[in-house]
């Protein structure tokens, strides 16, 4: 059982839902990323999604674009992302780490070298935004053979046929993008989420996380009542962006702890 699966199994046993924060590796600079990952864990993260910055983040809104630009300007690269994951593991932390990014930096490194280096660094899953199932059967197989869960997106516009396509290649969990648009967009449709999650869970047989547009504990709690995991990205990056140097980790922990408490309170009521 992968570390991601173990996490979901343990949480299910405790009657809790997973909290999955996202930060961009190297934002605001490479030295800050390890302390920020530890701050996420301290705030109650169950899995960390670590963004690999890309020059052309087509599926991201302004907040994550800015994070990517800051990280690249600070000299971030795929190899340095992997170094950070390695140093996180060296602290003994077992929180699963999912790398999230775009295809080109992976292809530039080469799929096999990437999978090998990523697994060796201690990451657990990979989510490549612009690799839909039909374009990456080989990649998904390599990931699985190398011990990485290939994680896929589903969207409000996805058909049931897509659920099956994703189930055939995916692993770990499904990331349900809760709204039409890019990361950081405004509002999300809870009714839509409530309607779709059970069908997805049944068809793909994997835990379903919901993300895009979740900005506070109250919304996170509502999502937690419907899905297996809550993903929060842009809102955390805003916290980092607006922090004075050195304060970002403590502010991120405080923000996430509030979300965690709201989720667990709602979960406990179930």
């Amino acid at each position, binding site marked *: 059982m992968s570390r991601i699966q173990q996490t979901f199994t343990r949480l299910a046993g405790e009657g809790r839902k997973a909290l999955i924060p996202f930060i961009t590796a190297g934002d605001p600079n490479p030295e800050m990323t390890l302390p920020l990952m530890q701050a996420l864990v301290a705030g109650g993260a169950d899995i960390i999604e670590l963004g690999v910055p890309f020059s052309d983040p087509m599926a991201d809104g302004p907040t994550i674009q800015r994070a990517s630009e800051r990280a690249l300007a600070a000299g971030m690269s795929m190899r340095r992302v992997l170094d950070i994951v390695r140093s996180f593991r060296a602290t003994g932390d077992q929180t699963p780490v999912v790398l999230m990014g775009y295809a080109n930096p992976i292809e*530039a490194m080469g799929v096999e070298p990437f999978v090998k280096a990523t697994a060796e660094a201690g990451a657990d899953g990979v989510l490549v935004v612009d690799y839909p199932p039909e374009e990456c059967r080989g990649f998904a197989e390599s990931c699985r053979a190398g011990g990485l869960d290939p994680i896929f997106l589903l969207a409000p516009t996805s*058909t049931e046929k897509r659920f099956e396509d994703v189930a055939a290649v995916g692993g770990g969990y499904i990331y349900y993008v809760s709204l039409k648009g890019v990361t950081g967009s405004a509002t999300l449709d809870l009714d839509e989420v409530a309607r779709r999650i059970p069908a997805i869970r049944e068809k793909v047989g994997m835990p379903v996380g919901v993300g895009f547009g979740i900005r506070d504990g109250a919304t996170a709690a509502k999502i937690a009542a419907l899905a297996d995991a809550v993903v929060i990205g842009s809102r955390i990056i805003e916290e980092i962006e607006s922090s004075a140097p050195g304060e970002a980790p403590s502010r991120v922990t405080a923000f996430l702890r509030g979300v965690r408490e709201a989720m667990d309170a709602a979960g406990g009521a179930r």
Partner: protein
Amino acid sequence: MHMADAPYDFPDARGHFGPYGGVFVAETLIPALTELRQAYEAALADPAFAAEFNYELKHYVGRPSPIYHAKRWSELLGGAQIYLKREDLNHTGAHKVNNCIGQAMLARRMGKPRVIAETGAGQHGVATATVAARYGMECVVYMGSEDVRRQAANVYRMKLLGATVVPVESGSRTLKDALNEAMRDWVTHIGNTFYIIGTVAGPHPYPMMVRDFQAIIGQECIEQMPEMVGRQPDYVIACVGGGSNAMGIFHPYIEHKDVRLIGVEAAGSGIETGMHAASLSAGRPGVLHGNRTYLLQNEDGQIIETHSISAGLDYPGVGPEHAWLKDIQRAEYVGITDAEALQAFHNLCRFEGIIPALESSHALAYAAKLAPTLPKDKVLLVNLSGRGDKDMHTVAEKSGIQF
């Protein structure tokens, strides 16, 4: 890997040209692309669509565009004869409008009242704004803020035509960033919006669909050349930004194996300086903007900034079909520097009384290099993809003149 005698039939059903092309987009866009593919297939099967397209091209664009023998310039060069396919005479001044009409017609069929576009030089933005005005559609054009500065006249033209021009401040503030932003708009407004991509790039079906709409250029040449010179040309030469004017003139010639196809990329200050936009000559395959193709990127897979005097060629990728034509050696790709393109620009003005677009000047410059090396009975057909009115500012600046 030479496709010996099998007829050329690309892309495959999933949009692949060999290893290139495909649909590399986030899940949120997949249903929109599926809907588009189905709508395009339905349109292709409907004779009324082709009839309307041809009517529009004739009466609104002014097609067929003529072929002109640049006799004086050919004589001065002292070698092969240069013929120009006059896409500069189209309504709006470039080949871009051919594709815009096709896609706007599809948008209408699909019931989408809002169209968006990315633009570099502004030609595609102007063509989209024009067609949107003609069909009464809302139009939003994304343009890198650097290009907004370089192409102020075209920005004003788009506004006159009723379009909203959104300057894009992210990344290198040029065409690739405008494309990113248009994709983001599309995914956010998928229900009512049609994204009119301006070149043979993007996810399937765009590279195929844009090529099909632009193929009218080559189809006309296939008829016109025998009338003019009694045979097909020896060379067909076109500039390559994303590659739509080149694919449009190349595609009908692919099966004419004796005709050499030459794509001309922007070599900027020179390939060796790193300041260029020659993806096929100096790039490596990768994934950007929904397809796999040759890209200008660093060793970490980050897309790098490109440089060209012509905004329309300032793009770090290239349509996937060009990547494939390069690999199977059906087309050759060469580079022309800013200085060489400018020289050709001035020469065409002086010797033929035609002011070409700076993009097209790259193709002209290569023809001017090639012609003197060939006998006088050889025929070069150059796609004069657009006129240079929009470039007055840039050219004047280069000559130290301020308006």
